[in-house]
């Protein structure tokens, strides 16, 4: 200890032990991710920060690297860019073990648990990655070159040689270079060899040409580059050369000694740490340097990050393509244009491809709810082990597609509801057997689309809500008056009341979750509702109903008069062509027609919605869309059938009001608004008549 640095090292080890303890204390105090206050996060951040600073001073590279990732995550939480969630808490807990191990490594020469550290680090990075854009990478790059960068984007070499007189139109070449910089990182070389001698120099002329190399995380097309220079395309010479990123070629996925995790699965929760470590020994540890390459390769296979705006503009463009395609499709009518047989073949192929393309692009925004559901079997298994219960997970409708934003927001509420079912809902083995129920309880997660909504159910076959206990608790907490006379359902709904928590003793499991009132608030923030249905000893079902605000619907575009409406494809059985005499009249009204052997009613949409249309012409056109809802069919007279396409459903209530017979609106490829028909609602009107 003669070396003064050595003395400071000793102090640092004391400090770091304190800092780690402080982080742990703070984490343990947080029993509810959603109520974690800024002060606590700041404290944790400070501790991580001082660990990082100290370890960097003493050259403890691994500790610096690890705390840096932690600190980056905490900073995002602190600044509100990331919402604190259960996963983040869990991951911070697992970080503690890594920190202790690393400190022990530097202090006592203990071996670093590389696998454990890498797993937690990857998890931290994973939590960090989704909402951040290039910003995080930029912030990291100076000190931690081994933090994996995002997937490779585009690289271009641009030569930009403006005409000497370009400034005479008020254009400044540097402005365009600035604009290029918005597409990615640029480095600029200015060639000045053309600058003449001073006597010949005209100060209003530009004699330079620029070579700009552009490197972007996102993909940048030549069109994007041309767009930047659109105003001066005739006032300068350009050359755009794409550059192959050597990294792309040189970094095929290395052989990974660890078991490959299926792409959809979340990083393993902390409970599994021991399992993974046990599985390790027979494989040689990957060296430090190879590790980031591995995680990069893995992440690249899972996803690339694309600006949502880019997808939306792609969707709009495709909308236009679809319209063009449908304009062309009239020439595909072989009866009318027999001479165009080959053309018509091509057109029908074009139609198919356009539709597939559009579907594919729309899907980019959508993710199967499996992204959210898939974590639960693992979570429930771990929880049931801890609680010594036997629980099976059943997942139905995992392919139901939901907008990305919804999935992100749904995560926390679902985690809480599932924890709740496992912890409070399902009984232990002996209780179940005593009740004559199967020993294994079941948690069912189910998702499906229902006209106008996405429904998600979380059900268990457990004990059901304890009505008496809830009532007693609500009275105790002052949520209701002691003499309140409530139905059983009303009592069940009290669990959503602010300040109400059903757990009698805060168990280890639900202790750190969010309250039911927070779940309800989160769902409501998405414009949805949550209901509970519970029957004693049969179980509890939570039903989350989310509006289609963000959802996408496969719709048939049609015209009534000049107005465009959309009918969900799901409601359409077929479209048929009738002759006027096929339509049965009562007096002046068209009432029904015969379809597949039965008479089904005609629905006069034009009259129902007050569309301006020549009714006689509508009957002569005889175009009928047969729709169905709740087992009832009817035929809708339309003037014109257009293409069908997937549309993004928007709510009418956001700025207007609910409209009878409509489930929402959408924006078409040309930017106009089209209304979406709620077939169930209009059919029920027909029945009333």
């Amino acid at each position, binding site marked *: 200890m003669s070396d003064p640095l050595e003395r400071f090292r000793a102090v640092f080890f004391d400090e770091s032990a304190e800092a780690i303890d402080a982080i742990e204390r703070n984490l343990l105090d947080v029993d509810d991710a959603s109520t974690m206050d800024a002060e606590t996060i700041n404290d944790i951040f400070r501790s991580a920060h001082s660990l990082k600073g100290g370890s960097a001073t003493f050259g403890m590279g691994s500790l610096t690297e690890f705390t840096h990732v932690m600190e980056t995550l905490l900073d995002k939480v602190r600044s509100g860019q990331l919402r604190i969630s259960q996963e983040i808490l869990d991951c911070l807990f697992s970080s503690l073990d890594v920190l202790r191990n690393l400190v022990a490594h530097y202090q006592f020469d203990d071996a670093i648990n590389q696998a454990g550290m890498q797993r937690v680090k990857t998890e931290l990075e994973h939590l960090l990655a989704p909402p951040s854009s290039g910003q995080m990478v930029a912030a990291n790059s100076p000190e931690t070159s081994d933090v994996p960068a995002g997937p490779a984007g585009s690289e271009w070499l641009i030569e930009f040689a403006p005409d000497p007189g370009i*400034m005479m139109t*008020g*254009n400044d070449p540097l*402005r365009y270079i*600035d604009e290029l910089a918005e597409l990615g990182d640029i480095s600029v070389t200015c060639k000045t060899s053309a600058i003449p001698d001073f006597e010949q120099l005209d100060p209003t002329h530009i004699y330079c040409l620029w070579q700009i190399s552009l490197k972007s995380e996102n993909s940048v097309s030549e069109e994007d580059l041309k767009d930047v220079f659109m105003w001066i395309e005739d006032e300068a010479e350009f050359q755009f050369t794409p550059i192959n990123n050597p990294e792309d070629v040189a970094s095929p996925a290395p052989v990974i000694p660890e078991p490959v995790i299926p792409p959809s699965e979340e990083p393993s929760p902390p409970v599994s740490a021991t399992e993974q470590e046990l599985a390790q020994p027979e494989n040689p540890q990957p060296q430090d340097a190879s590790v980031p390459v591995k995680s990069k390769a893995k992440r690249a296979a899972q996803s690339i990050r694309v600006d949502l705006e880019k997808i939306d503009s792609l969707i709009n463009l495709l909308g236009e393509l679809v319209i063009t395609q449908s304009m062309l499709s009239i020439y595909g009518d072989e009866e009318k244009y027999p001479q165009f047989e080959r053309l018509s073949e091509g057109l029908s192929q074009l139609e198919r491809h356009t539709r597939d393309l559009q579907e594919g692009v729309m899907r980019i925004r959508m993710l199967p709810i499996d992204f959210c559901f898939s974590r639960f079997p693992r979570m429930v298994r771990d929880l049931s082990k801890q609680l010594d219960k036997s629980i099976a997970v059943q997942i139905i409708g995992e392919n139901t597609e939901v907008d990305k934003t919804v999935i992100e927001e749904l995560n926390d509420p679902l985690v809480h509801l599932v924890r709740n079912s496992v912890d409070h809902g399902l009984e232990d083995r002996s209780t179940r057997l005593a009740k004559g129920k199967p020993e294994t309880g079941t948690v069912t997660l189910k998702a499906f689309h229902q006209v106008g909504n996405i429904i998600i159910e979380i059900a268990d076959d457990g004990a059901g809500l304890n009505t008496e206990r809830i009532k007693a608790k609500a009275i105790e907490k002052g949520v209701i008056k002691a003499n309140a006379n409530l139905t059983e359902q009303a009592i069940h709904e009290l669990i959503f009341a602010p300040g109400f928590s059903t757990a009698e003793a805060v168990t280890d499991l639900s202790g750190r979750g969010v309250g039911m009132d927070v779940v309800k608030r989160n769902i409501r923030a998405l414009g949805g509702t949550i209901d509970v249905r519970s029957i004693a000893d049969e179980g509890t079902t939570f039903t989350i109903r989310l509006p289609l605000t963000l959802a996408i619907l496969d719709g048939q575009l049609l015209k009534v008069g000049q107005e465009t409406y959309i009918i969900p494809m799901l409601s359409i059985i077929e479209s048929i062509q009738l002759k006027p005499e096929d339509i049965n009249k009562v007096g002046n009204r068209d009432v029904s027609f015969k379809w597949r052997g039965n008479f089904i009613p005609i629905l006069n949409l034009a009259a129902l919605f007050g569309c301006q249309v020549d009714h006689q012409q509508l009957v002569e056109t005889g175009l009928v869309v047969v729709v169905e809802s709740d087992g009832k069919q009817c035929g809708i007279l339309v003037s014109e059938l257009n293409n069908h396409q997937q549309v993004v459903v928007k709510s009418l209530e956001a700025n207007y009001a609910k409209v009878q017979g409509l489930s929402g609106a959408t924006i078409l490829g040309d930017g106009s608004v089209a209304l979406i028909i709620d077939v169930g609602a209009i059919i029920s009107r027909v029945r009333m008549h």
Partner: protein
Amino acid sequence: MKKILTVDDSASMRAMVAFTLKAQGFDVTEAVNGQEGLDKAMGDNFDLVISDVNMPIMDGIQFISALRKADNYRFTPILMLTTESGLEKKQEGKAAGATGWIVKPFDPQKLVAVVNKVLK
């Protein structure tokens, strides 16, 4: 404060441009045609000029080429407001010395973005 001159014969279009840009902290002067625009431009020093193309008395093309000839407007950005179909006008305008164009009808936010870019 950057000074912008907007020249348009439609009062609404003028009001829209002026309202949008004033809200961003620009000093906006309005003129109803090329002639008035030219008069106002000469008596002042604008950082940016936004002009409609089709106007009575003096149209946008004449206005731009006249303005470009003035000493203090040799390098000033001048933007045209054109309709999508007016491709020929765009080229005429560019030949007259326009810096670039904004397609009508435009989104107010887009206008602000373009103006900020040009004045950066």
